[in-house]
């Protein structure tokens, strides 16, 4: 990702505050169109939007790996032990 140039327009600060809501599709149609008009004219804000999209994509793609095998084995062993013990405990409680 490349860092965009510094904010150069007072409107940019205003639009930057709404970029996440734009990204998440939460803006009203009129606000969305206003941002899209601004993005066409402002490479600075367009770069910020692109890098925010990349940041979100990295979280989605890289944030949730499988459990490492050793951790998974311990997790499975705990589940098996709990489910083995539980019926005996319920029987004793009766």
């Amino acid at each position, binding site marked *: *990702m*490349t*860092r965009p140039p510094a904010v150069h327009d007072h409107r940019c600060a205003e639009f930057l*505050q709404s*970029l*996440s*809501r734009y990204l998440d599709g*939460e803006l009203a149609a009129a606000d969305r169109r206003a941002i899209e008009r601004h993005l066409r004219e402002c490479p600075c804000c367009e770069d910020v939007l692109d*890098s*925010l999209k*990349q*940041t*979100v994509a*990295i*979280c*989605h*793609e*890289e*944030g*949730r*790996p*499988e*459990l*490492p*095998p*050793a*951790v998974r084995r*311990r*997790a*499975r062993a*705990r*589940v098996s032990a*709990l*489910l083995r013990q*539980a019926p005996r405990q319920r029987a004793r409680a009766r």
Partner: protein
Amino acid sequence: MQADRDGATYAALVRAVQAGDERAMEALLMRAQEVAYRFSLLVCGRPDDADDAMQEALLKTYRYAARIREPEAFRAWLYRTVRNACLIGRRKRVNEPEHFVALDDAGGDRDGHERRVDAIDPAHGPEEQALTSSLRSRLTRSLAAIPRPYRVVVVLREIEGLSTREVAEVLGISEANVKTRLHRARLLLREELEAL
């Protein structure tokens, strides 16, 4: 979206557990532990505490899953439980860790064996795996560098896929506050990812 599928899966598993399906209980208990593991590492940065958090999530899920009246509320309850378990672990210590451990590096057992033990995925070549691992490591370090109130929101929303409403429930803040924090968190994370 992934978040919606996950939410529906949790609710379906809870319903199956309540109908007496033991396999569903096994699946739910594994998911609860996976959530606790990721949360411990990504939010608390304490791989040593992950086992404690996983144990807590396991036992509480086992006790609660059969009793919950609204299966759709289970996922937020689970993350709240895991967050509380991590916070309790954290209160026992004074400081945050100096270095977070990348998710790929945290698979060692208590004796320190079997670190970096992720299985090779035959679908990806060594170069692609190295790239993925490096990106994941950058993400972990970048998350560790941003303040915890922002880190927890971005982990819950972007990585764990909870809805804005669920994140608000887990953290006990308003949805508007979640959105504000998420925007700030994305900007901070972006800066950190660019800096590495």
